[in-house]
């Protein structure tokens, strides 16, 4: 009984991590569906969003190091903290600006190119953004605090203690993250199902030529999906950054999204969500049950092994469309 409850607690924690994986995977899927581009930079966008937020909030002067080195000055921040809400708003605007620039400077010139070339372009974008973020805000690890409650939730612990005689340790940050992520997914779903632009997004995902023929501008749609991907990156960045500090490793979250995508299918939004949750819960449970027997640290590779095995049996993913070669 005790072990079962413990396993349940582990699963819940895994579920919460899974939601963040799902968020990042969602960013990939949105862009892939609309433009056929596998956006390697999605992970770096998470990092960049979090960096910008921290930078603005803590009043870091952009390009401080560079300015100091070039001009021999010794600037260290503006000396004030920006109100969190304003910093959030400005960060969101930067992500929208980024989306617009990506379309203007990259996608526009590469339409109709081989997907591999577009993929390469996003690799370029990833390294550029990473360097640019460092240059602008500094490469040191930053603590992100925008007032989201963190630490073990007493309410949950007491309640579970009363019900099961065993108190669950659930982080309040994870609870907030789950709620926000769920709201985001619901919001996006409603938007895509019931608004004109959402309909245009789905149309473009299905057929570019037909979309053009009814008057949809592909370039406008690309700006919109990259903006949404930017928003999703910002939200993932906030929670992940609050959890483990804003630093380079944040962009590696994207590496966890890869197995999620293999599991869920590149073109399926429900797939990204279910895939994320399965990997999140799976890796925690596996580590809890099997990890100690085989020397631990299974979380690093578990997701990939599952995805690989899965690929062998269902290459299109859980919900992906079946790939049938036309002959």
């Amino acid at each position, binding site marked *: 009984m005790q072990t079962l409850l413990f396993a349940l607690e582990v699963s819940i924690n895994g579920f919460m991590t899974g939601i963040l994986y799902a968020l990042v995977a969602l960013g990939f899927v949105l862009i892939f569906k609309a433009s056929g581009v596998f956006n390697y930079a999605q992970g770096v966008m998470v990092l960049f969003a979090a960096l910008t937020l921290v930078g603005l909030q803590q009043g870091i002067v952009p390009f401080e190091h560079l300015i100091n080195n070039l001009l021999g000055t010794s600037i260290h921040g503006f000396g004030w903290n920006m109100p969190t809400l304003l910093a959030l708003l400005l960060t969101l605007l930067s992500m929208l600006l980024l989306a617009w620039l990506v379309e203007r400077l990259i996608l526009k010139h590469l339409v109709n190119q081989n997907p591999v070339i577009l993929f390469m372009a996003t690799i370029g974008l990833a390294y550029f953004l990473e360097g640019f973020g460092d240059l602008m805000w500094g490469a040191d690890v930053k603590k992100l605090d925008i007032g989201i409650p963190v630490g073990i939730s007493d309410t949950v612990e007491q309640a579970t203690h009363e019900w099961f005689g065993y108190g669950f340790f659930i982080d309040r940050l994870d609870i907030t993250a789950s709620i926000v992520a769920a709201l985001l997914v619901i919001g996006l779903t409603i938007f895509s199902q019931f608004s004109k632009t959402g309909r245009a997004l789905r149309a473009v995902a*299905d*057929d570019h030529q*037909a*979309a053009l*023929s*009814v*008057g949809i501008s592909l370039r406008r749609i690309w700006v919109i999906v990259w903006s949404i991907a930017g928003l999703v990156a910002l939200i993932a960045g906030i929670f992940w950054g609050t959890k483990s500090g804003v630093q380079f490793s944040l962009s590696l979250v994207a590496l966890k999204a890869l197995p999620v995508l293999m599991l869920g299918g590149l073109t399926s939004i429900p797939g990204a969500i279910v895939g994320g949750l399965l990997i999140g819960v799976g890796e925690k449970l596996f580590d809890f049950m099997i990890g100690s027997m085989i020397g631990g640290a299974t979380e690093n590779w578990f997701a990939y092994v599952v995805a690989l095995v899965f690929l062998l049996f269902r290459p299109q993913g859980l919900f992906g469309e079946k790939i049938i070669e036309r002959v």
Partner: protein
Amino acid sequence: MEQVELANKNDIVMDIVNVTLRFGGVKALSHVSFNIKRGEIRAIIGPNGAGKSSMLNVINGFYTPQEGEIWFEGKRRPRLKPHQIAYQRIARTFQNIALFEGMTVLDNMMTGRMIYMKSGLLSQLAWWGKAEREETENRLVVEKIIDFLEIQAIRKTPVGVLPYGLQKRVELGRALAAEPLLLLLDEPMAGMNNEEKEDMCRFILDVNEELGTTIALIEHDMGVVMDLADRVVVIDHGEKIADGQPDEVRNDQNVIDAYLGVSH
């Protein structure tokens, strides 16, 4: 009244002047000229690979010709993107059905109304005011077309699961939703069985007569063309070889040779 109608009937909707289109070394169209009159059904015919689809693609902006001019509603058309041409109310269907497979019949047809919907992103996000009103108004137009095409029963069906003939009809519906000034149909009857063909024929005639829509259509089946078209232009190897009433064209020696594959 009668007079006005006649005058309109002779009015030219589109004038295609000396259009040449090349793909590398391949000349898909060379110096093709013809016009489309208001209210008529204009057929474009010719053997396989003649350049018929290329012509429609030039008209709706998918292809940009190297030479030639296109006059639409009395004005010379500048170089435009396909989605901008859609806003001029030129709608089309495709030789291989190009529907939004994941979406329902209703949603597919609503995309045809895109050019009339102007609400901003914020209004849509809030689903308030303009966005909501717009959605309802345009939905009414679409429902009328659904009735017209007799597809009420499948309104909420995802188009991917529909039989071929119905998919073609939905595609026609999506184009009609734009209330086009010029409707382009690329082989609307291809791949259909006889019953489906007859239905489609009837719908095309109804669209032309009841809605007064000007139609340019590509068709292989000579019999169908004779029944439907007011005037026919024949293209072979990218060149126009005949232009006129259906029975004139049918008896034209150049056309007979082209269809029999006589070499030039």
